[in-house]
């Protein structure tokens, strides 16, 4: 039975090709962000660790940046679930701290400021997520990292793109760079 002879080859080529391109785009997009994005170092606070679908991971909380002050959220007016927000951080003596929250990417950003694109999962809470809250580790290696977070010795190195997208670049333990994220 030589039905649709060429057609299946074209289908295989198109499907495999497009799916591969989608995957390649995801990889290049991330690698570019990590390579080119502005680097900031944030304090990490302990949050209960969990495990899921993509394997073991450790949840990273960012203190004031993850749990915004009530006053800051007043500026954005009516809140919705899963709403996109832009959080401006300013570097001070206690590290990066949030100074304002806006609906759009702010027009003027000072040199000592950086803007993160975040999401309000729940309109009634003050929690904001930036997509940098999970650090995936090889099976069974999460415990050691959790200890470091609890001891307060861990900082996260984050790359920030010009649109505010953030990517985890690595972890810093007692001022020493560890778990550096390779580009590929």
């Amino acid at each position: 039975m030589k039905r649709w002879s060429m057609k299946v080859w074209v289908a295989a080529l198109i499907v495999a090709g497009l799916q591969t391109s989608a995957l390649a785009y995801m990889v290049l997009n991330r690698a570019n962000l990590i390579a080119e994005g502005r680097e900031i170092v944030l304090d990490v606070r302990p949050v209960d660790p969990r495990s899921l679908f993509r394997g073991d991971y450790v949840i990273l909380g960012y203190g004031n940046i993850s749990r915004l002050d009530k006053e800051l959220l007043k500026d954005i007016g009516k809140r919705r679930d899963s709403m996109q927000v832009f959080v401006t951080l300013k570097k001070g003596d206690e590290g990066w701290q949030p100074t304002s929250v806006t609906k759009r990417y702010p027009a003027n950003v000072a040199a000592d400021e950086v803007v993160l694109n975040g999401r309000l999962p729940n309109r009634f809470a003050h929690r904001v997520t930036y997509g940098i809250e999970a650090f995936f580790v090889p099976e069974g290696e999460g415990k050691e990292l959790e200890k470091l977070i609890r001891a307060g010795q861990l900082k996260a190195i984050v790359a920030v793109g010009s649109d505010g997208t953030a990517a985890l670049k690595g972890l810093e333990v007692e001022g020493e760079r560890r778990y550096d994220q390779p580009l590929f």
Partner: protein
Amino acid sequence: MLGKSYADRLERDLPQWIAAGWISRDGANAILSEVQERESGETGSHRLIGILSVLGAVLIGAGVLSFVAANWEAMPRLARLGLLVGAIWTAYVGAAITFQRGLDMFAHALVLLGSVIFGASIMLIAQMYHMNGNPPDTVVLWAAGALLAGAAFGSNPSIVFSLLLACLWAGWETQLQDAVFWPFVPVWALLAGLLVWRDCRYGEVISAFAIGTWIVSLGYLLPDGPNHSLVMLLGALIAGIGLALTQTVTLYERHGRLLLVLGYVVIFAAMLAEQFFTYKIPFETLAVLALITFAVSVAAMWWGIRTNDKTLTRTAYAAFAIEVVGIYLKTIGSLMGTSMFFVSAGLGVIALATGAFWVNRRINGQPDTERAAS
């Protein structure tokens, strides 16, 4: 399930044709045995091979997903991704080869396997770069990849897989936002329309189940508080369309039956919600709603038996039983209520039995007497 085989339909129709005098009993038996042999022989074993190879693909896919989740360090990350991309190409090229050789049942399994590994690759990239944005977004990309594969190869299992992923996406977003997730409707319409057009029966059933769940969720999630009566109305509309289809367009009888069952299930789920998941419902209202639910169930049973729609009949039996248990649990606190429940449920069951007996005699009575006479 809903789609009956040709032999099943013949088995139902032949006695009537014999009774009408169009064909002889011997002729009918010859036709039936010929059709049964044809269906159980070739297509029967074909179907088994198809099911087994799809199940095999699902198992391998689960293995690949666990491989990603294990985050195995012995192999560099890029090598792992390369391995998965290689597996994607192998699966689709393998599908092309097997399609060309006419081994369709293996080809479909390979297309599905390719779609699953595509998803595993997305998860691997998310893990590689510690991406934790909006998790449902990755599922959307996965569903789009599975749809692409299913549409390009004309492979139903992959399209159905895409539909299941769309359901996961909608469920996830609904849970995150705690509100009605409208984007599901156009996506569902696209996938369900494709499956109906491709005449994929199990896909149609899964589509019906998916949209039914979404409609029932409207009752809970609409912004102005619970609104189960709207859901009942929608269910009645769907059942009505289904009924009209079965009665008018023979070509779409199967679809009509599916819509009828879907509409009935939606109505029943909304009735259940109104009776048992509403805060402090007065006893009188509950009694009226329960009576309506019983009446609708009996009507569905009656119609199912009359039109030989086993799915509808069984669904209605199940609904009846669930309603009985629900009323029992709800009224259990007050003795008067419990007593009321027992008496009315008993009366209902007896009425049902009498009705079934009457309907049975009407349907089976005639051929029986004829067989006795001949």
